[in-house]
């Protein structure tokens, strides 16, 4: 064979090379065949948790909420509708909630892993809530349910192994029979139903969890809920596959048979794959402006684009307990120094400049709030007044991986502040590091962060982020460490006020003071833009859940 090779060496060589590459070309060209009625999704990184007690981020919640179900859920908007609880009643004083469960909700698997599992009872919900309250579970939602009578004490007893455990169950949760569950609250809370709609307290079968514990496994890897989908396979950092739960109590849902979510790749790759038809739904938050224009303006894709406000606020927290931001004039100067219109230039319709804290559409949003416009001259004057005529140097912490445009934003902020004499050092860290660092007291001066609403209420923004009493030494959500007794009083009063109109007025007063004192550089609110393939039907953006996959139909 080698002898023949040397007949016309050069031509033979090039022939072989060409044939080789043509072979590669042919195999590469063949499109991977696509089975029908599967929803193909893609994400840059793995889903963090499928355990409802731990899932608290946007990558996990859309999947946890279709694997599991709670007492209540959100309807088409921010309204609360029945889920496993068929109906409920609230006592006149607002402190007792009674839920009546439906009888046909079943878990997906029974003790031995066969389908279907047993019926979901009221006891399961008590177990789920107590699981959250148990410090051993290390759930982020533990403190959300302290309003239930005796819950906080129950939880604290268990965090100290030395105390004798006094009560078996939380006294505020009463389970008279399989179909009823009653909650007694410490004080009336209009948002209690919203807390019950969070995936933290979706029903989890106790014997399943205990069996997994004994076998050294976790609920995370072996979900067993009563939702419209069940898990088929989860290969970490590669893919997550969910299939239809045939025993789901609503026979009309889910509308597709399978969901496959592949992980990996960056945004550039995802957009390419979407345009080539490999992915069905693609969000456009991180798309480059020309791509964004193409998706939202071109005749080809525009009919399949949807948008809705994300109900968030993006900001730079200025640590009020550290120099130089302990001076209100300095903080105000920072706000005047930033030209937010540049953001509009490269993010376009995807953002709206923020004048205050609350995003438009939140109850209590104040459209009259003026905020700070771009005025570098005034910024310089204020700095001089504050005693920094030559500016100063600070470090801005940010996470370029949390949101794509944070990197550009940091550079823009650096450039704008340089123009008024402030030198900004950029420190790029991981999101986890940033949260840890920003939550620690007396640690960092500036951090670029965002806050998405948990539910549509001003308390979720103002009370959580600005109440001085909520400051903790190590994991404060009040990242500006802002503590104004007047504001604290307003917020606390609003917290127990039952009259909605009065409540909102109190929150508005608080917001006005907050904006004036400028513990943050108020940056933007974002608008979600999503595009889907023509063969996807029933996909709609939801104000609370990023997506409700049980309603999506795949016509392919």
């Amino acid at each position, binding site marked *: 064979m080698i002898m023949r090779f040397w007949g016309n060496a050069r031509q033979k060589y090039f022939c072989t*090379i060409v044939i080789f590459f043509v072979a*590669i070309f042919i*195999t*590469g060209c063949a499109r991977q065949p696509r089975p029908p009625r599967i929803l193909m999704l893609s994400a840059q990184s793995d889903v963090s948790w499928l355990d409802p007690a731990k899932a608290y981020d946007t990558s996990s919640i859309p999947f946890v909420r279709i694997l599991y179900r709670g007492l209540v859920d959100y309807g088409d908007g921010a309204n609360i509708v029945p889920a496993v609880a068929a109906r409920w009643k609230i006592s006149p004083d607002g402190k007792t909630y009674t839920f009546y469960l439906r009888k046909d909700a079943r878990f997906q698997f029974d003790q031995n892993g066969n389908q279907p599992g047993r019926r979901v009872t009221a006891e399961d919900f008590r177990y789920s809530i107590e699981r959250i309250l148990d410090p051993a579970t290390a759930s982020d939602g533990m403190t959300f349910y302290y309003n239930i009578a005796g819950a906080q004490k129950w939880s604290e007893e268990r965090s100290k192994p030395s105390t004798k455990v006094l009560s078996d169950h939380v006294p505020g949760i009463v389970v008279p029979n399989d179909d009823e569950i009653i909650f007694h609250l410490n004080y009336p809370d209009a948002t209690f139903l919203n807390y019950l709609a969070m995936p933290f307290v979706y029903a989890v079968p106790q014997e399943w969890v205990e069996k997994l514990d004994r076998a050294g496994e976790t609920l995370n890897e072996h979900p067993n809920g009563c939702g419209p989908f069940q898990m088929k396979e989860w290969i970490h950092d590669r893919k997550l596959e969910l299939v239809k739960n045939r025993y789901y109590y609503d026979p009309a849902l889910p509308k597709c048979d399978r969901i496959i979510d592949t992980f990996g790749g960056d945004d550039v790759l995802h957009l*390419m794959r979407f345009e080539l038809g490999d992915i069905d739904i693609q969000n456009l938050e991180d798309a480059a402006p020309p791509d964004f224009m193409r998706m939202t303006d071109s005749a080809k894709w525009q009919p399949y684009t949807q948008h809705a406000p994300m109900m968030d606020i993006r900001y730079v927290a200025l640590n009020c307990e550290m120099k130089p931001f302990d001076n209100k004039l300095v903080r105000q100067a920072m706000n005047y120094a930033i030209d937010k219109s540049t953001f509009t230039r490269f993010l376009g319709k995807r953002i709206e400049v923020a004048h205050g804290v609350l995003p438009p559409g939140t109850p209590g949003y104040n459209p009259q709030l003026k905020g700070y416009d771009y005025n570098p001259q005034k910024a310089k004057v204020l700095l001089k007044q504050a005693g920094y005529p030559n500016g100063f140097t600070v470090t801005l912490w940010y996470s370029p991986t949390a949101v794509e445009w944070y990197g550009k934003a940091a550079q823009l902020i650096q450039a704008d502040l340089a123009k008024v004499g402030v030198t900004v050092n950029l420190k790029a860290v991981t999101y986890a590091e940033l949260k840890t660092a920003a939550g620690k007291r007396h640690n960092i001066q500036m951090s670029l962060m965002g806050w998405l609403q948990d539910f549509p209420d001003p308390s979720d923004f103002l009370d959580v982020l600005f109440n001085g009493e909520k400051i903790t030494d190590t994991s404060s959500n009040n990242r500006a460490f802002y503590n104004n007794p007047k504001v604290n009083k307003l917020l606390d009063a609003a917290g127990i006020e039952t009259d909605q109109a009065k409540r909102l007025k109190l929150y508005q007063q608080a917001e006005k003071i907050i904006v004036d004192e400028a513990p943050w550089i108020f940056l933007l609110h974002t608008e979600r833009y999503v595009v889907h393939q023509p063969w996807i039907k029933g996909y709609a953006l939801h104000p609370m859940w990023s997506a409700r996959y049980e309603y999506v139909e795949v016509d392919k």
Partner: protein
Amino acid sequence: MWRWINKVGRSRRERRLARRASPTFYIPMFIELLKKIGWAITTLIGVSLIVFILLYMLPADPARTVAGERADPATIAAIRHQLGLDRPLPVQYAYFVRDIMTNNLHSYRNNDLVMSAIWRRFPATLELALAGLAIWLIVAIPLGLLTAKYSGSVFDRASLFLGLIAISIPAFWLGRIFQHYLGYQWGLFSVGGGGANLWSLPLPALTLGFAGAAYYARLLHSNLGSVMNQNYIRSARARGVSEAKVLSKHALRNAIIPVIAVLGLDVASLLSGLIFTEKIFAWPGIGSLAIDSILNLDVPMIMGTVLFSALMVVVANILVDVAYIFIDPRLRQSK
């Protein structure tokens, strides 16, 4: 006279065959192999020490990352104790080695087992690495032979020049260009991201193989050049052995020795190229795992992936040494 020369050749061959039949022939090779494995283990120990010391200097506190945001100081202290972070350094190192061996190392991100995760992704990396290697050799060997044959011609000089340019191209740039133009705009190949299957293989393999092919072609060419002038080549030609056989049997065999030797050294650089390629094409292999873990400061995963890459390099070197012994007759006798 020709018959006399042929008779000499045959008896040499007979002697060679006789040598190979006896078992004592293989003993020195075996001893060499054992020595090399011993060296490899010391190298790995060295690597583990380096990795451990490096990561000990990390700024982030792993206990906090594991404990979660809302944990109080008491919980964090408990977790520090649980992770063994409050023990002296050598003890921590011992724990570390034990955890690696028993697959007890947990990632900070989602409590996944580090070694299992790495092992899960290894076949994908192997697939891609072999594909890249295949392109290296398939393009390089004939190219090297041809340029040696037509040494000095325009073809030769052009290939030299283009070869040098090829190894100067950064892998991440090339990968993106291929992905965007060949994959997305002209639709020739898959752009990647669909997992580690045959459909997604061509572009990443091409990216990997590109630079290496040029380099090895040149290497082979220069080695062939020096070999072709040796005496035994001239004597083989004089004996009337055909040109093809001269090239393939005698020259190639000897010229390929340094190529294989360098191949072993180059596994480390192959891995470097793999890292960018895997990231760009979302190939679920160890390279993208390594990069993601570093950028996420997932300490145990970093340790695991770095150690595993070192293991791959070391194993590749051993394999290369073994191949070396079989191919090069001069090394068969122990020194």
